């Protein structure tokens, strides 16, 4: 990238239920460590030196409150200061902040993502149903899970991927999560345990879905000059891209993600990556449902089309493998909805800073953080991060 941008500080709270805390209180638990680490504060608007701007990520449809950005204003120091609200995953907030800084308008931007999944614990699948078409799809009770199941069946049928291979993704990630103190669920589970956890929608079982959680994540991004002054552990954004597929799931070939292929190609090009399998040290991908990780191996070019199951079986993507995927335990170990992608970036940054504790990937210098959002992963985003600009 011509105008270099780095992530200079990160913090995240764990994923336990936090109904005792208001959204701004929860968010500030993640913001405070960032302020402490960088020693920065919220100065007068459009004056350089402190935190220039804030960017909130909060999906208002998940809390049924429009302009939900209002809630976090105090915590992100937004009163009479520049502030933006991305109504999508925190990963898109990081994407937006990168361009805000690269545009030259701001030098530092604080990105905060907050989500209480427990707010809608009485709402069942109603919130997810609202994403679908009000004429053709909502009346059929569609939600994220049963549409994901439609995709899973198609994908498995197309490429002969087995239910055991999907369950193995969950087993791998939950095992990785054992050394992640933020994780909600972790442990040594067998493929049989996971397959026996009961169907949510065939072929997806309960343990193959993301446990709902409450969480907040904060990151400070800075331009090159400021980043170098603020930290010796800057993690650089080397490439980033997102791409949106069509809305009607019946239009799409659900066995592959065209949008991911487009996003990955663009991000690799920006980062100067020619052979992702050789060059990438680790990847954090969205595994809201276990089968997604296998499809994403393919879309990201870690293997050939249809080779996701085999790549997993080769053990290359486990923690000690050549290309560890989801060393954090992924979303399958628990994640709040709006944080799914941002938590992936968080883990990659932690790994590249060498602060991942027992799950540290030795010598990690370049990592990939991926987000899939929307019905059957309609929106895909790829971000390449590195220890060198």
């Amino acid at each position, binding site marked *: 990238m*011509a*105008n270099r941008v780095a992530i200079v500080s990160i913090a995240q709270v764990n994923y336990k239920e936090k109904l005792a805390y208001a959204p701004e209180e929860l968010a500030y638990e993640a913001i405070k460590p960032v302020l402490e680490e960088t020693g920065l504060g919220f100065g007068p*608007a*459009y004056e350089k030196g402190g935190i220039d701007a804030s960017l909130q990520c909060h*999906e*208002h*449809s*998940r809390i*049924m*409150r*429009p*302009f*939900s*950005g*209002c*809630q976090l*204003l*105090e915590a992100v120091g*937004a*009163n*009479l*200061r*520049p*502030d*933006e*609200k*991305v*109504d*999508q995953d925190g990963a*898109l907030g990081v*994407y*937006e902040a990168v*361009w*805000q*800084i*690269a*545009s*030259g*308008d701001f030098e530092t931007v604080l990105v905060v993502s907050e989500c209480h999944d427990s707010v809608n614990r009485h709402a069942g699948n109603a*919130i*997810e149903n*609202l*994403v679908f078409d*009000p004429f053709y799809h909502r009346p059929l009770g569609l939600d994220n899970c049963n549409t994901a199941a439609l995709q899973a069946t198609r994908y498995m049928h197309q490429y002969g991927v087995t239910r055991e291979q999907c369950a193995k993704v969950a087993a791998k990630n939950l095992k990785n999560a054992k050394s992640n103190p933020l994780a909600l669920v972790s442990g040594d589970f067998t493929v049989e345990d996971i397959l026996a956890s009961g169907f949510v929608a065939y072929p997806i079982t309960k343990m193959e879905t993301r446990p709902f959680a409450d969480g907040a994540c904060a990151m400070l991004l800075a331009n090159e000059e400021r980043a170098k002054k603020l930290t010796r552990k800057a993690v650089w954004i080397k490439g980033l*891209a*997102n*791409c*949106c*597929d*069509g*809305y*009607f799931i019946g239009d799409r070939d659900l066995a592959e993600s*065209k*949008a991911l292929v*487009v996003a990955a190609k663009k991000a690799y090009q920006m980062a100067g990556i020619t052979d992702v399998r050789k060059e990438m040290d680790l990847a954090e991908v969205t595994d809201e449902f276990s089968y997604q990780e296998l499809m994403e191996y393919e879309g990201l070019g870690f293997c050939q089309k249809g080779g996701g199951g085999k790549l997993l079986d080769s053990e290359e993507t486990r923690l000690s493998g050549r290309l560890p995927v989801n060393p954090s335990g992924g979303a399958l170990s628990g994640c709040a909805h709006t944080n799914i992608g941002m938590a992936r970036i968080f883990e990659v940054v932690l790994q590249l800073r060498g602060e991942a504790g027992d799950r540290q990937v030795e010598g990690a210098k370049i990592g990939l953080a991926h987000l899939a*959002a*929307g*019905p059957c992963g*309609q*929106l895909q985003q790829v971000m390449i991060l590195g220890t060198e600009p």
Partner: protein
Amino acid sequence: MKRKVAIVGFGQTEMVARSPKTKMELANQAVRRAMDDAQITIKDVDEVVIADIEFFHGSGESEMQLADCVGHYMKPVMKIETGGTVSGSACISAVHHIAAGACDVSLVSATGVFPAPPPDVIPRGAFLQASLSAGMHPVWEKWCSVGAIGLFALMANAYVRLSGCTEETVAKCRAKAARNATRNPYAHLRGIMTVEDVLKSPMLMAPLRHLHMCPITEGSAALIFASEERAEKITKNPVWVKDVVSLHGAQYWGALHEMFAPKERVALPSLVKACDILYKRNGITNPAKELDVVEIYEPCTWAELVFMENMRLCEPNEAWKLADRGATEIDGELPINPSGGVTCTNPGMPSTMLRFGEVALQIRGDAGEHQVPREVRLGLATGFGGTGWTPLMLLSKYK
């Protein structure tokens, strides 16, 4: 900004109280008109920024729903959700993307469609007022639902008390808006209105009468931004984005006491501060002289007067005198809201973008019957929303 950015296309649908079209159909129509205006096709568009508060549509994740009809299928998309400011914030996002080199052509789309329960279950007006109030704190402020009307009634009261502005002058101001809207084929409330018509309209909350408050409008708008190199290829008349400033506020309306319970002058703090910053950054010392046209986001008639003062277009408590002598008319010395403004058309999500787009039309000289009759070189557009937030865009004919 690292690169120059220009507006190259603007499109809007007809604005009506209730549209027979779906949100997707309206969005598609506005996007087509913006692309026709720029004479480009969807292939020329690199990315889309969606401005939406899909809560008002009873939906979720609307950037997914709009993919096929707005045109970000197989393209990058970003969705911004602030408040009434949302399309302004989204335009600023697009400007950032282009300035940073993320893309060369960015399309911003905003659509306001307001489905409601069957009228015998809940009347539409009360329901929409409740949807606005749903943005407030669930215990502290939401319960009594005074919302925007309450806030602006208080502001109007305070302004009358401090400035001595008469009800006739404000009605005159409203009649000016109606006159301008009548010349704007896309405006919602069109038709000549007399001072008497305004003064006879039902009282909502004294001194705010029905005609003083913005209507509920359904419609869509789209703006296309491009980098310097592309803009000059696309059009002979790019409208250059000189600067953008955006300021937010506090969570509770209580922080806006300078607006509804002021001591000397009514002030929207974010607007005062944002204008100070923008003028300073751009060397504007006498905004009333230097700006050729201003589009203000005025949710009620009084807001136009108050915001003029906050923008330093005149002395505090003096705006009504300017309006009274016709200075803010389309052919006056400082034309304000030649489009008819928000009191004549308020589709919610696209409202701020309409201000930006209308200034662009004026600078291009393409505003047709509501064109300001002089050379328009520099124009300023404001937005309003959330708990008193302000996005500003300064647009210029010259680079």
